[in-house]
């Protein structure tokens, strides 16, 4: 079907979000350059939630000219990403309230543009739209990372992010160009139909293309050995942007890795699958080990979260490497993504609150948090324990499901590595918890009052983490065996 007579109503959520983002941007420059603009934050959250509802209403299945597809997979990921961005904006409202040197309106509009890019990415069935969505997300993130432009670390992080991100994009494009050169089409679906026979004729080029794309996507989801940028960028960026990078960029990156690798590179009946699954298994192993081991030595909470995020990306790679049934792996990843989004964003809400209060981001700013704000300290402990994978939290269920799926796929050693590295991760998460409960508060720290936006975010994230931890069936029955 040509794009002229396609069913454009499939794109309603994207169109609505695009228009609302432009409206919010227009309102911003009509209300002056400086000053606090909390109403723009509220409007952005409403825009994102409205879009999420529209995505849900529009969930059916269909394509526009074979380059934009709406299916259960894209619907799930879009809702996760939109809710994630809405929570990040709720966290940013507190951050922007505390920081006068950050332009407020542009911050929100760039977040919305990034959300639009992420939606375009997960819905695209064509390498060109996929790349443009990726760049829309990445370029907005580059700008957001450098938003505190008078801060040396923020600028340094943003420059590193731009240079390395550009290199990663070049790798992705180069890998895509091989595929295009061999097939003469950029449509993922068309490529997937001919890839098996192409692999027989040109094995080297096809594998090279897979490796180039894996390297480029690997940068975006920060897996070892493409993780070098993460700690510096995470440390330098404004804290809500760090939350954005570790959640939205990463989950959207995983969505396209799934889309590209599970459609294009699976080949007919998975012939091609054996070629790259062991590479991903090795990368997952190295990522889990390196991420968790380097995290042990960190003294800065944002760097700790960066390495913890690297390790989490390793866990998420396990179901991609150990495919039992592709749709089953997708279900496992979607479940862990949901869990990861809420636990990480809850933790980042509290990190924003604490670091903005103390003005420092090393562990000591957390000391005695229990005496200053018991609720926040307990919630933070739950999030960290969830990220570590302690039972009764959603993190445990997610990890257990990944573990089981890897075992079912016959990759018990990979599941074993995951188990051992999770145990290691307890050590550094407990380091933060110890600071909060065992140490005395710094002498001049008073009781910590959380603003409404942070309290709401923490409460929602806490509720999801515990409810999904105790009653995982609510979600699992619904997600398992999700279809394209």
């Amino acid at each position, binding site marked *: 079907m*040509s*794009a*002229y007579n396609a069913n454009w109503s499939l*794109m309603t959520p994207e169109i609505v979000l*695009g228009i609302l983002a*432009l409206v919010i*941007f227009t309102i911003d420059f009509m209300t002056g350059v400086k000053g606090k603009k909390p109403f723009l934050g509220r409007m952005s959250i409403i825009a994102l939630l409205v879009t999420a509802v529209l995505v849900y209403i529009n969930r059916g299945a269909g394509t*526009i*000219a074979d*380059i*934009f597809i709406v299916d259960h997979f894209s619907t799930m990921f879009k809702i996760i990403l939109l809710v994630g961005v809405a929570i990040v904006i709720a966290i940013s409202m507190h951050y922007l309230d505390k920081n006068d040197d950050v*332009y407020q309106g*542009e911050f929100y*509009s*760039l977040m919305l*543009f*990034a959300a*639009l*890019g992420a939606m*375009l990415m997960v819905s*695209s069935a*064509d390498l*060109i*739209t996929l790349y*443009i*969505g990726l*760049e*829309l997300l990445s*370029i*907005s993130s*580059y*700008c*957001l990372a*450098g*938003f505190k*432009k008078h801060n040396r670390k923020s600028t*340094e992080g*943003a*420059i590193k992010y731009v240079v390395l991100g550009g290199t990663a994009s070049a790798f992705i494009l180069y890998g895509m160009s091989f595929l295009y050169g061999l097939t003469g089409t950029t449509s993922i679906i068309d490529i997937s139909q001919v890839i098996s026979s192409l692999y027989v004729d*040109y094995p*080297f*080029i096809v594998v*090279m293309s897979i490796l180039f794309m894996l390297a480029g996507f690997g940068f975006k989801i920060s897996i070892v050995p493409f993780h070098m940028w993460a700690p510096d960028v995470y440390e330098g960026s404004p804290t809500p942007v760090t939350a954005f990078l570790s959640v939205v960029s990463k989950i959207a990156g995983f969505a396209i890795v799934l889309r590209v690798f599970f459609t294009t590179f699976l080949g007919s009946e998975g012939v091609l699958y054996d070629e790259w699954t062991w590479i991903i298994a090795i990368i997952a192993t190295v990522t889990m080990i390196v991420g968790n081991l380097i995290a042990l030595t960190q003294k800065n909470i944002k760097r700790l979260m960066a390495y913890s995020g690297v390790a989490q990306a390793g866990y998420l790679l396990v179901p991609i490497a150990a495919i039992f049934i592709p749709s089953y792996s997708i279900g496992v990843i979607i479940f862990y993504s949901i869990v990861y989004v809420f636990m990480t964003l809850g933790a980042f809400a509290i990190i924003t609150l604490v670091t903005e209060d103390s003005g420092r981001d090393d562990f000591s700013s957390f000391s005695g948090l229990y005496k200053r704000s018991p609720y926040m300290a307990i919630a933070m402990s739950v999030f960290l324990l969830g990220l570590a994978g302690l039972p009764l939290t959603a993190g445990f269920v997610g990890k257990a499901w990944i573990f089981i799926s890897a075992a079912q796929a016959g990759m018990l050693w990979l599941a074993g590595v995951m188990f051992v590295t999770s145990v290691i991760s307890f050590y550094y998460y407990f380091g933060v918890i110890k600071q909060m409960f065992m140490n005395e508060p710094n002498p001049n720290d008073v009781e910590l009052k959380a603003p409404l936006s942070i309290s709401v975010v923490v409460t929602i994230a806490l509720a999801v983490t515990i409810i999904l931890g105790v009653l995982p069936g609510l979600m699992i029955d619904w997600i398992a065996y999700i279809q394209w």
Partner: protein
Amino acid sequence: MNPQMIFFLVLAVLAIACAVLVLQLKRISHRVVSMAFCFFAIAGLYFLLGAEFIGIIQIIVYAGAVTILFIFGMMMTEHRNITFSAHPRKLHRVLSFVGVGTLLGFMLYGILNMDLPQNGSPRVYEEGTAHEIGLVLYGHYVIAVIGMAFLLTAALIGAIVIARKEAK
């Protein structure tokens, strides 16, 4: 050796040499000039491939507009050398050279060993015309074009925010 091959070799060597010079030259104005020549050489390669439209766009946009933008940027900013850390150590240089060399070796091996079927009949170059490109761009790939529009808007907003001089 047919004339096409000779032109290809000249243009390819020019493009690569200029790209290396962009990295090697010390003064930024020299780098901009060598970048412009690199763009011209790439435009020539497009012409050789029969993609006249893309070749002309390459000259207008890259060799023209982008180079001028770089010159403006050069004039309007003060460009001191700012490094975040000390110069890379010798070990790092050797390691990165070995890494890049291995990658190049693998790529050359793959590309040289690829025996593509010989297309006997010369292709009719209709795909590269502005008419065809317009139809595909605003028909099949219209979503990508609109996505690009948002991308450029976001990039512009971000660039203005970061580059804006604060009023004291």
